[in-house]
C-alpha cells in the first residue's frame, strides 16, 4: 500500500538532518547507524556524527546521560552532519531538553510518551510536563506511546523478557522514520537477522516492532507528508560507510600490504584515538601487531624499535599523549627512522574536553619538541579521506625516512561518510629505502641525493651492522660526533630533508574566486563546514571570495605564498586560538592575515561562518 492511497502527499527534499536522542541504553547509536546505512545504500550522500556522554554508564534519564546520533542525508553533496535539525526523535525528557534547541521551528518532533513521567521530568530538571505546558508550541509534536505499542506488537512471541521488549522500542522509532523518508526496511531486517541469529524470538520481535512502527507512521494522520531524498550524484563505484578512525586504520593496512611490510602499532588507550587501536587489533590475520603498551611513551618507543627492525611502525594518540611522546619523537627524528604518529585532537589543554573536538595541537605537532626537530605534518580533513592521508603519511615516512605526524580530530574520527572503496593494488606505489647489501664505504647516514633520505638497513642483514642513537652523528661516518660544524650541518640537512618533501606533495587548490577580496583558509577537520558555508556564500552572490584548505602543514605546499598573495585579505578559520594564522604570518604579510576561531569543543556552524565571512567583506 503506498502513501498516496492513504491520501498522503510526498515532497522532495534535497537534504535532511535527523537526530535520534535518548538514554545511553536506548540504542540510539544503533538506530542512527541503521538509518545512515540504509540511506547510503539508497545512494544518498551522507555525513553522520555520534554524540555520546563521557560517562560510561551515566544514570538513566539524566541530562548528561543522553546519547545522540545525527545524520545528514542529501541528493546533493553533503559536507557536514548539519547544524539545524529537520527532525528530532527524543526517547526521553532528558534527550528532549538537551536537543530541542537544534530543531528548526515548525519541524517535527517525535517523542516516546511512555518515558514522559514525573520521575524523568525530575531527572531532566523539567518543572512541568513539556508536552503540556506549551513550551513546544513552535514544533509539530508527534506523541507516540512507543514502549506500550512495542509491547502490544510483540504479544504472542514466546520467551521474551520485559527488558528485551522495552529495548525494541528504538525499532519502532526507526520504523516510523523509515516511512517518513521512503526508506526500505530490508537492510535493517537483514541486520536484525544477523545480530540476533542465535535468538529467533528476538529476531521476530525486533522485525515486528520495526514493521509496526512503519505502518503506524503510514496510518497516522499527524504525519500528512512523507519525503523523498533522491540519490546524490557521486562518482560510480562500490561504496561503504566509514568512520574517520576506521579509515585511518585501513589506510595503514593498505600501506603495509602495498609495501609487504608488517604493520606494527604501539599504542596506549586514549579518547578519541582508541578506536584505531581497536580496529587494528581486529586484523592480526593481515600480519598486524597491535601492541597495547604500558603508557604513551612505551607505545611510541615500541614503534621505534619495530621501525628499526623493519616494520611499518605507527603510534596513535591524542593531544596529551603526543606531549608524552615528544621526547621519543625527537629520537625517531634524530635517528631518521620511518614512523607515523597519529594525533586525534581533542579539547585541551590537559584533560580538557576529552570527548570534544578541537584543532589545538597544530603547533605542538610542528614545534613541540626539544632542539631543532622538524618532521612532516599532515592533517586529514574528512572521515573518509583519513584513509588517503594515513596511506600518504606511511608513504612519506617510508620514502623520506622520517617521522610523520598525522593530525585528525574528534569530529572526523567519530563522524562517518561514504567511502568509495579503493583497491590497494591501485594505490600509488611506495618505495621503502630498505638496503639489502652494503655498498662500498657505506655508513648509516648515507643519503639519497635528491631527497636526502638515509638508507634503511635492517637487522638481520649481513655487513650492515651499525649503531644509531640520540647523540649527534658525524655526517660522513655515522659515528658519534661532538664537532660543532658537523652539528650545524646535520641540523640544516634534517631541515632540508623535510623541506624537500614539498616536491612530492600537491599544491593548494583554490575554490570559488581565484583572486580578489578575501581568501578563506582552513585546515584539517573543518573542511566540511567551510566547504558548505562557502557554497552558500557563493549562492548568495558573493563571488569575490576564494577558499583553500591545508592538508599539508609541514612542509607547506609550494604555492602557499603565491595563493595567499592573490587576495587582499586572508581569513584563517580554525578551532583553536589562531595557530595556523600564526604559522602563515611567518610566511606572508602579517597585516593581511585575519583569524576566525572557535574554542568551544564544537565544530563550526554554517551561520557563524557566513557571518564571519561577511564581516570581512564589509
Amino acid at each position, binding site marked *: 500500500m503506498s502513501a498516496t492511497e492513504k491520501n498522503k502527499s510526498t515532497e522532495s527534499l534535497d537534504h535532511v538532518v535527523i537526530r535520534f536522542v535518548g538514554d545511553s541504553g536506548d540504542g540510539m547509536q544503533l538506530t542512527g547507524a541503521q538509518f545512515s546505512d540504509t540511506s547510503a545504500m539508497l545512494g544518498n550522500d551522507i555525513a553522520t556524527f555520534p554524540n555520546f556522554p563521557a560517562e560510561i554508564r551515566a544514570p538513566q534519564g539524566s541530562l548528561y546521560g543522553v546519547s545522540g546520533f545525527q545524520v545528514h542525508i542529501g541528493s546533493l553533496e553533503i559536507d557536514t552532519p548539519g547544524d539545524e535539525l529537520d527532525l528530532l526523535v527524543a526517547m526521553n525528557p532528558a534527550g528532549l531538553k538537551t536537543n530541542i534547541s537544534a530543531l528548526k521551528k515548525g519541524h517535527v518532533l517525535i517523542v516516546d510518551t511512555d518515558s514522559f513521567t514525573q520521575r524523568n521530568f525530575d531527572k531532566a530538571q523539567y518543572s512541568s510536563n513539556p508536552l503540556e505546558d506549551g513550551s513546544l508550541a513552535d514544533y509539530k509534536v508527534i506523541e507516540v506511546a512507543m514502549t506500550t505499542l512495542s509491547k502490544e506488537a510483540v504479544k504472542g512471541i514466546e520467551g521474551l523478557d520485559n527488558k528485551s521488549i522495552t529495548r525494541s522500542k528504538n525499532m519502532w522509532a526507526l520504523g516510523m522514520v523509515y516511512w517518513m523518508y521512503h526508506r526500505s526496511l530490508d537492510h535493517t531486517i537483514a541486520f536484525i537477522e544477523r545480530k540476533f541469529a542465535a535468538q529467533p524470538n528476538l529476531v521476530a520481535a525486533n522485525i515486528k516492532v520495526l514493521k509496526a512502527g512503519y505502518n503506524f507512521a503510514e496510518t497516522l494522520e499527524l504525519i500528512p507528508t512523507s519525503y523523498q531524498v533522491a540519490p546524490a550524484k557521486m562518482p560510480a563505484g562500490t*561504496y561503504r560507510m566509514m568512520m574517520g578512525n576506521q579509515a585511518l586504520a585501513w589506510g595503514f593496512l593498505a600501506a603495509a*600490504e602495498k609495501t609487504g611490510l608488517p604493520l606494527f602499532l604501539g599504542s596506549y588507550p586514549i579518547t578519541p584515538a582508541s578506536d584505531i587501536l581497536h580496529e587494528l587489533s581486529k586484523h592480526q590475520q593481515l600480519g598486524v601487531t597491535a601492541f597495547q603498551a604500558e603508557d604513551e611513551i612505551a607505545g611510541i*618507543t615500541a614503534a*621505534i624499535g619495530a621501525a628499526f*627492525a623493519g616494520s611499518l611502525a605507527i603510534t596513535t594518540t591524542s593531544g596529551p599523549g603526543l606531549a608524552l611522546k615528544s621526547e621519543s619523537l625527537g*629520537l625517531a627524528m634524530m635517528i631518521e627512522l620511518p614512523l607515523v604518529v597519529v594525533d586525534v585532537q581533542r579539547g585541551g589543554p590537559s584533560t580538557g574536553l576529552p570527548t570534544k573536538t578541537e584543532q589545538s595541537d597544530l603547533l605542538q605537532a610542528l614545534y613541540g619538541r626539544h632542539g631543532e626537530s622538524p618532521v612532516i605534518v599532515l592533517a586529514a580533513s574528512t572521515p573518509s579521506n583519513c584513509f588517503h592521508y594515513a596511506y600518504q603519511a606511511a608513504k612519506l615516512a617510508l620514502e623520506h625516512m622520517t617521522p610523520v605526524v598525522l593530525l585528525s580530530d574528534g569530529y572526523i574520527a567519530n563522524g562517518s561518510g561514504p567511502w568509495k*572503496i579503493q583497491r590497494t593494488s591501485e594505490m600509488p606505489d611506495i618505495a621503502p629505502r630498505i638496503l639489502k647489501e652494503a655498498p662500498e664505504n657505506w655508513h648509516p647516514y648515507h643519503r639519497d641525493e635528491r631527497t636526502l633520505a638515509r638508507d634503511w638497513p635492517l637487522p638481520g642483514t649481513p655487513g650492515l651492522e651499525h649503531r644509531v*642513537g640520540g647523540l649527534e652523528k658525524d655526517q660522513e661516518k655515522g*659515528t658519534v660526533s661532538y664537532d660543532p660544524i658537523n652539528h650545524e650541518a646535520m641540523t640544516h640537512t634534517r631541515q632540508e630533508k623535510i623541506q624537500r618533501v614539498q616536491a612530492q606533495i600537491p599544491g593548494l587548490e583554490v575554490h570559488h574566486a581565484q583572486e580578489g577580496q578575501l581568501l578563506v583558509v582552513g585546515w584539517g577537520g573543518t573542511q566540511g563546514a567551510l566547504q558548505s558555508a562557502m557554497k552558500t556564500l557563493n549562492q548568495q552572490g558573493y563571488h569575490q571570495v576564494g577558499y583553500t584548505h591545508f592538508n599539508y602543514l609541514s612542509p607547506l605546499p609550494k604555492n602557499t605564498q603565491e595563493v595567499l598573495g592573490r587576495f587582499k585579505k586572508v581569513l584563517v578559520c580554525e578551532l583553536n586560538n589562531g595557530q595556523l594564522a600564526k604559522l602563515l604570518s611567518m610566511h606572508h604579510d602579517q597585516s593581511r592575515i585575519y583569524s576566525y576561531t572557535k574554542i568551544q569543543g564544537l565544530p563550526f556552524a554554517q551561520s557563524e561562518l557566513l557571518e564571519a565571512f561577511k564581516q570581512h567583506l564589509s
Partner: protein
Amino acid sequence: MEKPSYTPKDFTSDQEVRWCPGCDDYVILNAMQKALPEVGVRREDIVFISGIGCSSRFPYYMNTYGMHSIHGRAPGIATGVKLANPDLSVWMITGDGDAMSIGGNHFIHLLRRNVDLNVLLFNNEIYGLTKGQFSPTSTLGLKTKSSPLGNVQPPFSVGQLALGAKARFFARVAGNSPKEMTDLFIKCHQFKGTSLVEILQNCVIFNDGCFSHVTDKSVREDKQLYVEHGKPMIFGKERNKGLVLQGLKLVVVTLGEDGISEADILVHDAKEPDPTLHHMLVSLQYPMVTGIIRAVPDTTLEERLHEVKQTAVSKAKYHNTEELFFSGETYEVGA
C-alpha cells in the same frame, strides 16, 4: 645451521671506548665480547639496545646492530625490535637510574610480559653520567652531590623489584668477576624469556667501593654465595658455610659445627615457580647471593602473540585488504 666462528675481536666496533679508566664497564664489555662467539648467533642477528647513562654507551662499542636510545626507554624499543623480528637476539643494556627511576614503569612491564630479551642492569648505586647524584639503589645516608647531608630516600633492591614484577630469570654477578659474567651471559641468551642480570658495578669516580665489602678479592669468597641449580648453597674460602631454612628465615651455618653436615644445607632450585625462597635469596645481605637465582621457563610474549595470530589466520574471513574492504555492507553507486 652451522655455528659461525667468531673471536671477541669480531664484536669490537671502531668506536673508541670512553669509560673512565678502571671502570667495571670495561670488564663487562670484554665479558660480552667473549660470550658472543660462544653464543653462536650470527653477528647481523644481534641487536643491542640501551637507554641513557654510562652503561648505555655500550652498543656503540659492539660491532652488531645497536641503538643508543633515550633515558629509561630501552625496554619499549627492545620490545618493539623483538616483536617485529623474533629471530633477532636482542640485548638490553641499562643502569640503576635508567631502569628503576626514569624507566621504572617500562622495566616492570617488560618483566611482566616476558619478552625474550637479555637485560644487563649495571647497578652502581649512583648517577655517574650526570656526575654523582644518588640513584634509586643508593644506600640510605649516602653523601652525594644532591644529598650532601646523606641520602634520605630508601633504596630499591633490583632483585626484589624484579621478582615482584614476575621476572622469570634473575641473576646477579659482581662486576669484577669476568668469568662468571661470560658464563651468565651465555645462559642468559639460552633462557627463553626476559633474562635479567644485575651486575654489581663499581663506579670508580662517584661511588668507589660501593660493593667492595662483597666483591674485593680478599673477601668475595667469604661474602658471596654463587648459587648453581641443583647444588647445595655452600660458600666461604673454606667452603664450610652454608644456608639452611629456620622457620621463615635463611640462616648461615657452619659445616661441621652443631652437627651440621652438607646434607642439611639447602639445595638451590632455580626452577621452582614459587618465588618465596628466591625472594629470600635476593634479599640476603650476608652472604650476597650471586649466580642464577631464578630461571623458571614460561611462554614469551612473542610466542603468545604468534599463537593468537595463527588463530586469527585460521579463522580469517578475509586474507588481504581487498577482501576486507569489500566485505560486509557495501553498496553500488551509478553504473
